[in-house]
């Protein structure tokens, strides 16, 4: 038996067979009708439409045979497809190719076979064949009939394929339509050459219309809806697509909706056919409403812009820095400010930033690298300050801070912030410089304090602990190895001053202030004066009785004071000694007890005596003023009944009043008033005021003295009937040597110090002085002193 050969184009042939989509399909009338006709026309037992598969022959239609396939190796048709003409075997039993073929030797016992090849897509995929169990030979006419029927089968196969294609297309279209409807996508077709355009309903819906409303539709319909600003871009993209630069036309543009708003449309399409001369002909495309997406995008963009602006306004740069174990480094993200900080763009350092290390100040490079390594190793916060150098610029100080994170690839990613702190740094450097200058000044001050010999100390009166600043050792004449204590301090006190110091300390427990000037005896025996000034909190808040204070060596000041005292003492003595003799001698002579004088002599003696008295007053007043100025007036304050004091003053001044022919009157008033004052000084004040009043009243006038209560004070008034005090003089009234008219001086007498002394004395006695005056009417001088309540005066010894 000879097996059929495999044709040269077997692969293509099998593909054509597959494309025909006939294998293993159900029987179809269109083929069965033809095979029946062949059976009748040619009067054969078996008619088959056999398709030659790779290993078998399968019968699409069969008449007179039950099996639907046999092996290709025993097939007659396998031979038939090797040539385009009909393959005929008259008697298989005698043909050496088929004589032992099982189809010949067994059922269906083939003797006659004739097969016309079926050609589809230029490949012979099978045959229309006739078979008989008796030998036979086709006539020419019969062969023609067989060929014609084979052509008919071929036609049916082609038609069938066509139908199937149509069905598939319809199904596909349906599917696409469904998909488009489901995705709410508008479609368009555009004949680029004619402008003819087709839209679907959805296309119109996107802009709020129906297709009917838009009719007639052509390319201008689209152009009318598109946003003018977007048409240019759209046109450019189309040109690029037409030129083959873009596989698709893809554009996002705005279209005007019926409601007046702009809707964003994603427009996408491509040319599907071209004219013979290569121009684009038909283009299909879609419209998708992407307004929401576009809005979201715009919002996102806005949000990004906002973020960017925000970052741009931050003085420093926000960044991500990544470093790999091999030393590679990059800034996957940095804000635009990297330009201001490092002088590079974000793009330049996105992949590799190792070159930035060249910009680091050489002195800072190691420290920076170490800080980064440390942060990477421990995943600890990175914080560092370093300098970078840029061409033609002063080094810039940077301060960075970032949090590291270990990535899967073993690299470390920092999220952080770097800022330029040059200005701050310079400020600090300036501060340091100022501080240094201050320290120098402070040292100078310390030196000054040493020169002034002021030391500071802290003591506990309870525990006896004492701390001294270095100057105190110097003041007290101790070496600094001595351990100070309250006991040691007490041992330095001058014996005559110890009690005074103790009293001041006791006072401090009540008043909180310790203020005493005393002498100390140094280990070498020299005596120094010191002024201690200290403060302490009340014992209930200060259980350790801590006292903090200063001590100043005031020896020189005290020595000066003593010299001054000595001088005043001497001057007063030296002036008064001759004065004593003069006024004493004149006094005796004027008494007339030694001798009678000529009236002219008596007059001259009176002048001499009066002026010696004036000189005496002047000396007394000068000394008083000096003492008031130095705050050294010693007052003997006591509770005094006022009435007797007033009477005493009046009687003291009576002779003077008589001299001026002035009447002195004590006005009636409260008689039980008591004050606290120094009686001697009180008399001095009263004498001043009364003598002034007498002097300025003039002959025949009255000077009245009165007392009254003014709130909690006692007011004593001296009223005259003089000419009043000129307004221009009033402000200077209590100044030293103040007198309204220099010419009055000799005439009226007095030193010009009385009111100044009175004012000073009253101030020291917690009182004050004042006056009321009216020109031509008179003047009232008054002073006020604290009144003593009855209880105190009763318990008083006075």
């Amino acid at each position, binding site marked *: 038996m000879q097996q059929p050969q495999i044709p040269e184009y077997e692969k293509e042939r099998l593909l054509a067979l597959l494309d025909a989509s006939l294998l293993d399909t159900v029987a179809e009338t269109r083929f069965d009708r033809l095979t029946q006709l062949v059976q009748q026309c040619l009067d054969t037992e078996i008619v088959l439409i056999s398709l030659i598969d790779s290993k078998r022959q399968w019968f699409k239609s069969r008449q007179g045979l039950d099996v639907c396939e046999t092996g290709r190796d025993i097939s007659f048709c396998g031979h038939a497809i090797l040539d385009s003409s009909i393959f005929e075997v008259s008697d298989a039993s005698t043909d050496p190719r088929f004589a032992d073929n099982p189809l010949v030797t067994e059922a269906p016992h083939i003797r006659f076979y004739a097969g016309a090849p079926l050609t589809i897509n230029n490949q012979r995929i099978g045959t229309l064949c006739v078979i008989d169990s008796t030998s036979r030979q086709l006539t020419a006419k019969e062969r023609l009939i067989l060929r014609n029927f084979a052509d008919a089968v071929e036609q049916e196969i082609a038609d069938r394929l066509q139908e199937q294609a149509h069905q598939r297309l319809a199904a596909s279209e349906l599917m696409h339509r469904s998909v488009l409807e489901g995705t709410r996508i508008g479609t368009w077709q555009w004949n680029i050459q004619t402008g003819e355009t087709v839209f679907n309903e959805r296309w119109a819906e996107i802009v709020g219309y129906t297709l009917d409303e838009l009719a007639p539709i052509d390319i201008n319909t689209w152009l009318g809806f598109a946003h003018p600003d977007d048409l240019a871009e759209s046109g450019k993209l189309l040109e690029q697509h037409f030129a083959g630069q873009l596989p698709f036309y893809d554009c996002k543009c705005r279209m005007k909706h019926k409601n007046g708003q702009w809707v964003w449309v994603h427009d996408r399409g491509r040319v599907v056919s071209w004219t013979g001369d290569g121009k684009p002909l038909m283009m299909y495309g879609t419209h998708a409403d992407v307004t929401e997406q576009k809005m979201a995008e715009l919002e996102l963009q806005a949000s990004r812009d906002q973020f960017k602006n925000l970052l741009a306004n931050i003085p420093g740069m926000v960044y991500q820095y990544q470093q790999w174990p091999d030393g590679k480094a990059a800034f996957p993200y940095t804000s635009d400010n990297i330009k201001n900080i490092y002088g590079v763009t974000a793009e330049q350092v996105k992949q590799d930033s190792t070159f930035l290390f060249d910009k680091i100040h050489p002195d800072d490079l190691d420290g920076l690298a170490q800080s980064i390594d440390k942060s990477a190793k421990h995943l600890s916060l990175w914080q560092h300050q370093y300098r970078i150098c840029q061409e033609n610029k002063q080094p810039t100080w940077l301060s960075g801070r970032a949090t590291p994170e270990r990535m899967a690839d073993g690299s470390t990613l920092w999220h952080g912030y770097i800022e330029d702190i040059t200005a701050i740094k310079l400020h600090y450097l300036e501060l340091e410089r100022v501080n240094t200058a201050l320290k120098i000044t402070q040292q100078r001050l310390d030196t000054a304090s040493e020169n002034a010999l002021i030391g500071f100390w802290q003591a506990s009166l309870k525990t006896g602990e004492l701390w001294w600043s270095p100057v105190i050792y110097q003041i007290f004449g101790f070496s600094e190895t001595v351990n100070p204590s309250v006991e040691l301090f007490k041992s330095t006190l001058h014996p005559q001053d110890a009690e005074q110091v103790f009293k001041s300390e006791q006072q401090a427990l009540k008043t909180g202030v310790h203020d005493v000037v005393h002498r100390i005896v140094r280990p070498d025996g020299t005596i120094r004066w010191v002024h201690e000034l200290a403060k302490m909190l009340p014992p209930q808040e200060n259980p350790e009785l801590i006292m903090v204070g200063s001590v100043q060596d005031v020896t020189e000041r005290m020595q000066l004071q003593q010299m001054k005292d000595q001088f005043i003492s001497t001057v*007063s003595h030296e002036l*008064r000694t001759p004065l*004593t003799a003069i006024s*004493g001698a004149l006094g005796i002579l004027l008494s007339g007890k030694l001798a009678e004088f000529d009236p002219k002599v008596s007059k001259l003696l009176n002048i001499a005596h009066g002026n010696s008295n004036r000189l005496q007053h002047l000396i007394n007043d000068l000394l008083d003023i000096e003492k008031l100025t130095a705050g050294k007036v010693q007052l003997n304050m006591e509770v005094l009944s006022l009435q007797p004091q007033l009477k005493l003053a009046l009687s003291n001044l009576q002779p003077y009043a008589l001299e001026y022919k002035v009447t002195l009157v004590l006005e009636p008033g409260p008689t039980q008033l008591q004050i606290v004052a120094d009686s001697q000084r009180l008399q001095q004040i009263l004498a001043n005021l009364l003598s002034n009043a007498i002097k300025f009243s003039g002959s025949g006038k009255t000077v009245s003295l009165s007392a009254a209560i003014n709130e909690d004070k006692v007011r004593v008034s001296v009223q005259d009937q003089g000419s009043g005090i000129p307004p221009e003089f009033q402000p200077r009234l209590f100044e030293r040597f103040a007198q309204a008219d220099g010419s009055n001086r000799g005439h009226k007498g007095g030193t010009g110090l009385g009111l100044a002394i009175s004012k000073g004395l009253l101030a020291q006695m917690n009182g004050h002085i004042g006056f009321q005056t009216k020109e031509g009417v008179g003047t009232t001088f008054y002073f006020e002193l604290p009144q003593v309540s009855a209880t105190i005066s009763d318990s008083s010894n006075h």
Partner: protein
Amino acid sequence: MPLKKIMHVEDDESIRTVAEIALTDLAGFELLSCDSGQSALAQAAEFAPQLILLDVMMPQMDGLQTLAALRQLPATEHTPVVFMTAKIQQSEKQQYLDAGAIAVIDKPFDPMQLGETLHQLYNQQPDLN
């Protein structure tokens, strides 16, 4: 016994003279005028004054020293002493009182009043006998 014998110690001759006239001619006392502390000490025992009027500022031996020395003499051990001073400072006056003076009279003094003042001061003294 009324005050009769007064010893006055004063280095200034003018003042000695004024005081002498005031206390003898005008006040009628028996007066011993001394020009120094030393002189006073020398004559104190013989004169045996009832009251001593003592100037403060004197060369060589001042009032306080003279007082201290007089207190060493039996004749003047308890004799009342009145200081006369031109020094006006209160602290100094107190110093004299503390030293044992019964009073301090300011210079210049009123010569017409001096005798009377001394009488009063003397009479205020507790009876020494």
